[in-house]
């Protein structure tokens, strides 16, 4: 006997576009910061010239985040409660996130100061702290929705990895574009070398392959998972969120850049800059299906 639902109350999806943009920005910020740390923390000297641009880009992107997050609150001026003792709640992922979002930019400021001062020792020490915080901040954006067992699409331990990989590739993509613009306005001897751009694009390619692997794991999980997981993939992602999932993330953000970066095009400017642009844009698709898709089925329950 088939049961048809003839009436049910309707529910909004509480988190939306501002949160997707925030996730994208934090990711790109963490990704570009990793590049900045290549030279000063990991000692790869040829990356030193781009360290300052990378950390400034990371800081600028992170400056937009509070505007989005605070005005997304129902009571924006109560954001201070997130930090007050007596209010702070240790079991809530958002509480951990608040500490991270506060400390990550601070550590970046300190690190950038030592980079400007050309102080290798302190730049390395503060860089290590900042890189841990950068990765943790982005790890947190994955877990803040993951730790809700009722949101089947989000409730996967792959979440932080998906986010961090997306962050890595979108950060590099954005960095390549920014360096290209910077090169247009600097003297030839100060320009970032083309070989370095090519090398960064190769890192991006490895990230894309790993991202594909993660998406495949997620796909397997949903296909062999519970009815809700199966529905989350089969109906929500493949029908409602087809554009951000298939077109934006997989085709524009991963597949075309991968083709560009494994063929001889990877040696051309169009190949590298094109792939960088497409990855940076495409990763936003993942943020959309992750946030809004995760809430979609339950709004009908």
């Amino acid at each position: 006997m088939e049961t048809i639902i003839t009436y049910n109350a309707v529910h909004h999806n509480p988190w939306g576009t501002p949160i997707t943009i925030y996730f994208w920005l934090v990711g790109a910020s963490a990704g570009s910061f990793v590049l900045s740390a290549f030279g000063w923390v990991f000692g790869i000297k040829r990356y030193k010239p781009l360290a300052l641009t990378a950390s400034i880009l990371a800081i600028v992107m992170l400056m937009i985040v509070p505007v989005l997050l605070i005005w997304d609150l129902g009571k924006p001026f109560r954001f201070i409660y997130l930090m007050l003792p007596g209010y702070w709640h240790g079991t809530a992922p958002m509480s951990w996130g608040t500490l991270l979002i506060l400390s990550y930019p601070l550590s970046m400021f300190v690190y950038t100061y030592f980079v400007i001062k050309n102080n290798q020792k302190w730049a390395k020490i503060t860089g290590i702290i900042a890189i841990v915080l950068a990765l943790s901040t982005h790890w947190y954006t994955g877990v803040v929705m993951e730790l809700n067992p009722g949101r089947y699409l989000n409730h996967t331990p792959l979440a932080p990895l998906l986010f961090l990989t997306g962050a890595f590739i979108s950060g590099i993509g954005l960095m390549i574009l920014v360096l290209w613009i910077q090169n247009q306005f600097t003297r030839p001897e100060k320009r970032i070398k083309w070989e370095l751009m090519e090398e960064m694009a190769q890192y991006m390619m490895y990230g894309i392959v790993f991202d594909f692997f993660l998406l495949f794991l997620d796909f397997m999980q949903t296909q062999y998972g519970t009815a809700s997981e199966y529905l989350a993939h089969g109906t929500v992602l493949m029908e409602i969120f087809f554009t951000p999932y298939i077109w934006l993330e997989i085709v524009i953000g991963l597949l075309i850049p991968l083709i560009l970066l494994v063929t001889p095009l990877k040696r051309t400017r169009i190949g590298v800059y094109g792939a960088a642009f497409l990855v940076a844009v495409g990763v936003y698709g993942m943020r959309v299906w992750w946030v809004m898709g995760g809430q979609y089925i339950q709004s009908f329950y």
Partner: protein
Amino acid sequence: MTTESKQKSPAHALREYGSQTPGTKGIPGKRRYSMVIDLRKCIGCMSCVVACKAEYGVPLGVWRTWVMVADKGRYPDSRRIFMPRLCNHCDYPICVRNCPTQATFKHEEGFVLQRYNRCIGCRTCVIACPYNARHFLPAKRTNNNLPVLVVDKCTFCIHRVKKGLVPACVQACVGGARIFGDVNDPKSEVARLVAREKLTVLKPELGTSPSVYYIGGDWEIMDEPHNYKHRTAQQKEEFNTYKRNHHGDAFGDIVEGENTMYHVGKNMSDFLASIPHKFFDVVAALKKLLFA
């Protein structure tokens, strides 16, 4: 298995964290308010919904309690079934452990409550609740003294229960389908029903240990994927209309069958448009603080 041993299982004890009192089901000497809903008696009159709306002035479009309706079978061999819904006042509530400001908490007698003065309106608890039991209050209310732009939910009518009354929905229930009481008191009707009847709860696999029990629950109306897949066309249209008209307090609504990225963009413009009224809300609060 007796009710007591069922509810003292070690799996439950592991989940006590966050600003919540420990689970109190089956603990002697503690009260644990619960509700049993006998679906065989529910006639779908929606009196409970109206009583709840009247008791709290619940705004249009959001609910503390509502009644789901489903049609089972095909004509002439068909039947209409109902299932009231409300906050389950979970013994291990996800909403409580995920709230970053301790605005929502569990009372030691089992009520999961909301402190409006602490709530920042981040809606984390709405995301956390697997039962859609929470809603975000709109910026404008007919009564200016009622809270705005914070999250609200069913309170099991604690203000009535503390005076020896039953919740408004229970009082108003025409069919006598809603039964309320202390499940730890063996003499109470709920305790007897819980011990005697075959009961179901919603999404038991999530480990929330709900305190709203159903007698005669139908698995299809209770199942979330089934709900999604078996809606009437009219229901789909109603959802779409609702999501199209969200009036700037939810920015994640996508309308089925329309361009997703268009709605992503529209949500952003709604978000930007919502900033001024939040700003004025802050100015009004400051004025009250300084000059009242």
